[in-house]
């Protein structure tokens, strides 16, 4: 990023809005910030028009904080609730057409690589379950098969929230929603299985009530997508309106759903492990020394 555009033009500082001055003085650009520092710095995504108690908003806030280089990250989305919040962030956001986010991201990330070479320009797709598993399905899965180097994040609230509560492919079987008046007749789509089958180098499922875990998976997914291949994160981000979850019970619901169908899972290809260990110092993925492996085998 040209960090110049988050600097004041000399003499104009006192005329700039408070929000902008905070971004310049206390924003995360060019620094390393973490979710545990929340409240002590100006976040890239703060104001938003989302419903009270929206878990998706919390997840997006955490995700944006976790971007390894927010100043060089471009987000891509599609129709749905998520884009109402993502578009308010102080980083570029592409809102194209219905379900075209992974196609746009394919062209965008390749184009940026042509222009900037090895300089990281992270492309992160954030779209809903409908945008990812239904209308955008073909472009999502093909981008994975092509090993496109960007991150896909599904904001899975298991319903079309923005259009008023219709069944999606990610809705659980039996759920009664608009357009499924007799209850959904087929299972929640296994997009995690598909992601692995299609060759994603990093795949994780996560719920938003563990901020550090969210931060950890987002960071790894974005880093892996820089060089190794596609990465996919599927996050449960409940719709407390359509599923009638009281606002003070949203995190409780996330815990229940985590135990029911959203247990934390993480798949990292061997190549991605090696890359994370060598390039970014993830010691846990360093190859185990032969002696230690032998010792472990002896113990067993």
């Amino acid at each position, binding site marked *: 990023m040209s960090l110049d555009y988050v600097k004041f033009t000399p003499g104009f500082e006192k005329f700039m809005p408070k929000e902008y001055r905070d971004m310049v003085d206390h924003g995360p650009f060019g620094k390393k910030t973490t979710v545990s520092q929340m409240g002590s710095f100006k976040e890239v995504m703060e104001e938003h028009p989302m419903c009270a108690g929206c878990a998706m908003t919390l997840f997006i806030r955490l995700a944006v904080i976790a971007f390894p280089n927010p*100043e*060089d990250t*471009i987000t891509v989305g599609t129709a749905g609730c998520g884009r109402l919040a993502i578009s308010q962030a102080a980083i570029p956001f592409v809102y194209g057409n219905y379900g*075209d*986010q992974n196609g746009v991201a394919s062209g965008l990330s390749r184009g940026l690589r*042509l222009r900037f070479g090895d300089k990281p320009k992270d492309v992160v797709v954030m779209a809903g379950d409908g945008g990812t598993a239904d209308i955008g399905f073909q472009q999502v899965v093909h981008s994975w098969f092509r090993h496109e180097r960007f991150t896909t994040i599904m904001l899975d609230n298991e319903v079309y929230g923005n259009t008023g509560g219709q069944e999606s492919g990610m809705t659980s079987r039996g759920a009664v929603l608009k357009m499924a008046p007799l209850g959904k007749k087929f299972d929640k789509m296994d997009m995690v299985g598909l992601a692995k089958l299609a060759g994603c180098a990093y795949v994780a499922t996560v719920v938003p009530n563990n901020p550090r875990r969210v931060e950890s998976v987002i960071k790894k997914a974005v880093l892996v997508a820089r060089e190794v291949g596609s990465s996919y994160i599927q996050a449960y981000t409940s719709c407390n309106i359509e599923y009638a979850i009281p606002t003070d019970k949203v995190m409780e619901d996330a815990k229940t759903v985590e135990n029911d169908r959203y247990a934390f899972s993480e798949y990292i290809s061997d190549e991605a492990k090696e890359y994370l260990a060598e390039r970014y110092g993830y010691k846990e993925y360093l190859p185990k020394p032969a002696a230690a492996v032998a010792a472990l085998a002896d113990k067993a």
Partner: protein
Amino acid sequence: MSETKTNPQGDPVTSMEPEQKTNPQGDPITSVAVPKADVKKDPHEDAKKQRVVTLEYLLQEAPRTKEFITGSEAAKEAIRRSNVDMAIAYPITPQSETMQLVGVLYGEGYVKEYYRGEEEVGVMAAIAGGSRAGVRCFTATAGPGTLRGLEGIASWPGHRLPAVAMFTCRVVNAPLAIQPDNIEIAYLLNCGMIVFHAENQQDMFDFIMAGFIISEMNDVTLPVGVCCDGFFVTHARGYVRMQDKSMKLPPREAWRGAVPVLDAENPPARLSRDAPVQKSNFMAYNIHAVWQQEVWAAVERSRKYITKYMGGLCTAENMDKADVVIVASGSAAAQSREAARLCKEKGIKVGLVKVRSLRPFPTKELRELCKDVKLIVVPEFNYVGWLAKEVATAIYGHSKAKIIAGPHVYGGQSMPVELILDEVESGLTGKKSTNVPLSAIMGVDDPAAMAHFMRSI
């Protein structure tokens, strides 16, 4: 020095060409073979030697040599000289040949990035992504592919995305057919993109190259569609005068556009953040209304560049003292030229106006050219007569000419020049046309006929 290889005919084989192989029946195998591993030559050698020249020099001054090639090959040669960064392909007849030839250019290093997309929705999305990244993008499609990709294509102008798309027009299903028919242009005319219609292989070559330049002008910043009539142009050969392939256009300058590219080097455009969809109030409606006006104003502003780099939005031939004018675009212009020649033999003076740019449309030019003529004939390769509507709208109140919206051929039919000749003769004599219904003829000084015409075509 290594020995020069020759093919079975004794011609030298360059290392870029696969060896001529034959199948068990002795027929040559023409499919693209994987280059042999022992070939030492850098496949990108020629591309690396290409040098950038000014667009004025390349488009207007550089010496050209003539070759007899297909329209698809002409498009390939235009792309070779256009400094294209990214091309995204998806097969559909009759466009497939064009995009696979562009793939050959990728193999040779003339195009930096290339892949076969999942289908047209994905391809048009990826073109939008590439254009937003600030690189020069190209794709091509046809008929059903155009309509499949239309949601994306129709959004490019609003996003202010420079790119060139080629439309090798064919029938739009159903019933299934792959024959030439340019009905798809009717859909493209109202997208807010710039639309050219190529008559022949030379036009394909010239319009594509000029298209990139016009598309990327700061006060334009719009996609350009270059249409041609499939097969008639893509698969048939014609003479094309081309500059030496050692030269190419200057690259796209990402900073030059009217809207910032999304590379995180510039402050992000607020178009997404403050999208009209976020609010339902007067300002939201006003934002969208003003944006639409600006897109179409940008289409208007492209006129000066079309005049400068393509020699005008239309061309006029034999207009001196002509009572009759045939207005045509695409390959219908070629049929019309021959019809005009036959008319001349019969002693009827017929002029020809060939429309090159459909968006923007040469309204002023047509008003001037048609102001004193008595009869205008508009032959087209589609059922609905979209060009006749455009012509009638443009010259209404500026000409008293009778307009015949026809003859029309469609579904893959070819257009015998005699059909056009018949319309000229019946139009002049008042004899009933055998090919064009009365409803598609606008009478002289007859408001009822005018109203019927505009309703019916």
